[in-house]
């Protein structure tokens, strides 16, 4: 009896196994999005988790590979009017051919000319009416970018099929309040098809519902269209009818027929894939990246061959909540900033992949030449600190009367112990390590700092509502709006009044003088006045220390493996294509110059 049971079980089990294997096999052959390796450019580190929609107006999109409206917008599927090049801080034509203020003095309106060759993936022409409809629908459905745009654009009008007029929001003096943001919009707003938007509107109950539409039947103008996606990977396929092959644009189709992105479990899995040549372009932070070519001798390279390997664009920053007792004292904030060991952060947390504060002394500007030239360096010399200055920090606190009165090794301010939580999302390795180094500095100067690494969503809630002591968050990197917008992010008081604040000044710092300078700065064009204003803003920033940069960091990491493809843009190769991972802003130009590795 017993034996028979065992036999039965065994038979059943093997039958079940057979059935599953057949099932899996059948599914695999049905269409798993597999594409020939030598026609596919594989990315990594951009998309984490499955894609959930194709809607640029969506509020909860998880489609980083396809949709990213940012400082250098990703134009694989949807396209913008212009492309931003972080190397020269210029806009390059895409759907738009040229743009100009109608009146340079007031910047009250702008005219943009469209490329007459541009058409949609369904073959219909892309006209000014589409651009206008995109703006109108973004407003109508209150998409987050729509809401933002309404603060600096009142309306758009189609003058003729190829001409769009953009009307700025103007102040009492008739001058545009924020012309830089309009310029940024040229490379940020995805142009969508009017007819398609109307279809979507018709199938939604209310305009707000349009934000929830998945748009899986999308019509777009970009060189690629969705081909396959699931929890394991995302594949785009080239649109053979792409308008950009016209001589007026690229003159050819992009080289890879497919764009693939395998969704990896974590950084380590992605790194393994890169090393094995399964991934071509990696947007990954890789510890000791130089070992890949120095020790493992792999055909892997970064934009620059020597440290810092990438172009630094942004400044991950430690924000103080200046409303917390203790952190409302500038001495405490400055002491923490002075005691932190930045060289250690750079060397260990960042694996030497950005310039040091010795190379580029601290300010609100990123290390790029134009931004560094925007202020007077000599004026800031006495205000900048070098870090790891435990003695100086201790002296500063002692002088301010912030001492340890109860002998527990922790200083007090008005009877409250200086004990803070420093927060950033768990799993953001280099940030976690940086905060550990800040916490170690706190230990040296009698300030208790404990690190706190919650889920990213908790961290987002905390920084948007000001619910933190010390928090790590980044600021905008290379952008057409910078350094202006970054200064605003660091200092602008009115941001603190926002109920949900994604904009900046997360620590609720207030300085009337800074607000006034920033208000006047958006429309200032005189270079001397600009320089004076930026210098003063930096003085305020470095004196009051509402936050402090922990390191410089590339906007995007760019590491390529030349096993299958070559011809990637490299530093000083004369192409002027930025290392924006072949996908963002003018970086997409790289897709037109790639070649297969011979042999």
């Amino acid at each position, binding site marked *: 009896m017993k034996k028979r049971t065992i036999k039965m079980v065994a038979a059943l089990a093997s039958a079940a196994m057979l059935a599953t294997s057949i099932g899996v096999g059948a599914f695999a052959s049905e269409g798993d999005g597999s594409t020939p390796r030598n026609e596919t450019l594989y990315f990594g580190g951009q998309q984490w988790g499955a894609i959930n929609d194709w809607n640029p107006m969506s509020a909860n999109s998880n489609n980083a590979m396809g949709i990213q409206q940012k400082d250098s917008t990703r134009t694989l599927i949807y396209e913008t009017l212009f492309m931003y090049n972080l190397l020269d801080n210029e806009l390059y034509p895409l759907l738009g051919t040229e743009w100009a203020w109608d009146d340079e003095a007031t910047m009250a309106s702008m005219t943009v000319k469209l490329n007459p060759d541009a058409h949609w993936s369904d073959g219909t022409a892309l006209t000014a009416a589409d651009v206008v409809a995109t703006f109108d629908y973004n407003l109508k459905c209150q998409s987050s970018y729509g809401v933002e745009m309404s603060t600096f654009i009142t309306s758009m009008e189609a003058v003729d099929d190829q001409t769009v007029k953009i009307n700025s929001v103007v102040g009492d003096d008739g001058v545009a309040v924020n012309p830089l943001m309009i310029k940024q919009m040229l490379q940020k707003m995805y142009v969508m098809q009017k007819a398609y938007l109307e279809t979507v509107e018709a199938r939604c109950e209310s305009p707000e519902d349009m934000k929830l539409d998945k748009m899986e039947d999308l019509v777009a103008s970009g060189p690629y269209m969705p081909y396959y996606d699931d929890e394991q990977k995302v594949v785009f396929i080239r649109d053979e009818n792409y308008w950009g092959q016209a001589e007026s644009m690229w003159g050819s189709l992009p080289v890879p027929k497919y764009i693939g992105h395998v969704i990896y479990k974590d*950084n*380590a899995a992605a*790194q*393994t894939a890169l*090393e094995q040549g399964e991934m071509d372009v990696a947007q990954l932070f*890789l*510890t*000791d990246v130089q*070992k890949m*070519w*120095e*020790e493992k*001798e*792999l*055909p*892997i*390279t970064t934009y620059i*061959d020597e440290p810092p390997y990438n172009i630094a664009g942004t400044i991950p920053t430690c924000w103080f909540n200046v409303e917390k007792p203790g952190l409302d004292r500038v001495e405490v904030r400055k002491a923490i900033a002075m005691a932190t*060991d930045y*060289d*250690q952060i750079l*060397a*260990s947390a960042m*694996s*030497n992949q950005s310039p040091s504060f010795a190379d580029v002394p601290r300010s609100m500007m990123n290390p790029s030449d134009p931004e560094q030239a925007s202020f007077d360096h000599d004026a800031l010399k006495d205000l900048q600190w070098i870090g790891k200055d435990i003695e100086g920090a201790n002296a500063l606190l002692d002088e301010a009367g912030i001492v340890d009165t109860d002998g527990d090794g922790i200083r007090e301010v008005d009877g409250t112990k200086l*004990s803070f*939580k420093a927060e950033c999302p*768990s799993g953001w*390795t280099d940030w*976690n*390590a940086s905060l*550990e*180094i800040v*916490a*170690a500095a706190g*230990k040296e100067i009698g300030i*208790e700092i*404990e*690190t*706190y*690494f919650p889920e990213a969503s908790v961290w987002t809630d905390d920084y948007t509502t000001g619910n933190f002591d010390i928090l790590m968050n980044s600021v905008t990197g290379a952008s057409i709006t910078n350094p202006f917008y970054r200064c605003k992010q660091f200092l602008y008081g009115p941001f603190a009044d926002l109920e949900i604040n994604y904009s900046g000044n997360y620590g609720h710092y207030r300085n009337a003088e800074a607000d006034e300078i920033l208000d006047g700065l958006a429309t200032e064009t005189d270079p001397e006045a600009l320089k004076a204003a930026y210098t003063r803003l930096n003085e305020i920033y470095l004196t009051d220390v509402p936050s402090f940069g922990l390191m410089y960091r590339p906007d995007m990491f760019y590491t*390529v493996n*030349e096993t299958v493809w*070559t011809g*990637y843009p*490299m530093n000083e*190769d004369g192409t002027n294509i930025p290392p924006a991972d072949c996908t963002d802003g003018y970086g997409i130009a790289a897709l037109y110059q790639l070649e297969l*590795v*011979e042999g």
Partner: protein
Amino acid sequence: MKNTLRNIFHSPKFVIGFVIFFGLLLFTFIYPWFVMADPLEMVGQGNFFKPGTYVSVKDTVDSKYYTLNIQAKSANLGDHIEDKDKADMRDWLVNYGGVSQEEMDAADDNTLVALWLEHYDSKAKQKGLLASKKKAFVRLDKEIQKLASDADMIIAQENEDGELEETASVDSQQYVNTRDISNKRTFVLGTDNFGRDVLTELVQATKVSLKIGLIAGTVATLIGLLLGLLSGYIGGVFDDVIIFITNLFTVIPSFVLLILITYSVGQNARGVTLIATVIGATSWTWTCRSVRSQVISLRNRDHVNLSKLSGHSMMRIVLTDILPYVASYVVMAFILQISSGILAEAQLSMLGLGPSTTTTATLGQMMNWATLYAAHLNGSWWAYFPVVFVITIIAFSLNLMNTGLDQVFNPQLRD
């Protein structure tokens, strides 16, 4: 008692386990006498410096020079270039350097180097060459230039006017004795991602992990023993209640409970003792169950009944008539609890829920950071392998001791 101890120490398994375990324990106490550096000090500026002795360059330059008649590197260049590189150089020279194939075929290693020095130009148009390869050639060229250079290296210092003044020149036959150099530091196991000395950190981490294991084991054993003794001896409703609670704790996966508790107390409170206590408080159930079942079989034995008849208090009966019979089992369970406590801490820290990184080092924390910084992918074995080894050896020695004890105490296993 004496006899039991002698039996225990006659068990080879127990002795081996005991020696390993106490050897390790002893090492963690002796090591800090010799190396007094703070184990959490971030010495190395960079990730994962490899094991070895690091000597001060400045001291080397200032040190006494000895001239040794050892053939210097530049004497026979070819030997110092790898064959693969030589082949690459030949390809480059033929394809981009304008050297003919015949000339190349005739060239020996030294001629190759000469040709290379003459013809290589990083700015040359190198159509079809991978960017990574181009960069590799630039690095190779730098190496060869260095090898080929016969010139003495000049050491200069900046004088008051900001000009460089030669203080010494060094040729390739000059050596220094490492004993002359006072500023040096040996990292037996290299450094970790924060630049901390792995060996020093490992010693502290081992100590902390053992402490966690001991506390967790003690807590778990005490709770389990107490509840087991009482529920087994008293029985009835009391037993039902205790066994109900025990079952409840057995069904809830203890590790999940552990994660929830440690997460909710926050990192500041997550000191070593607290973590250990929490681990202990979630892992006592099987000790309790086993003790209870043993007590139930004991409580109707004659000697227990005799004690009862003699009017001994419950406390006395439990302590003198029952406890000694379960003691051997409890000791064995305790040993296993230590080992599982250490492993539980490692698991917790791997999830980032261990004690705070800046205040203490634990084995789990070390593993966690090594993995986060991809030490296992970059060949930085010293950052994770010794940690794994220590965890394994602790668990192994404890289990060995346990097996040894089992053989002594369990009549069925006795030879």
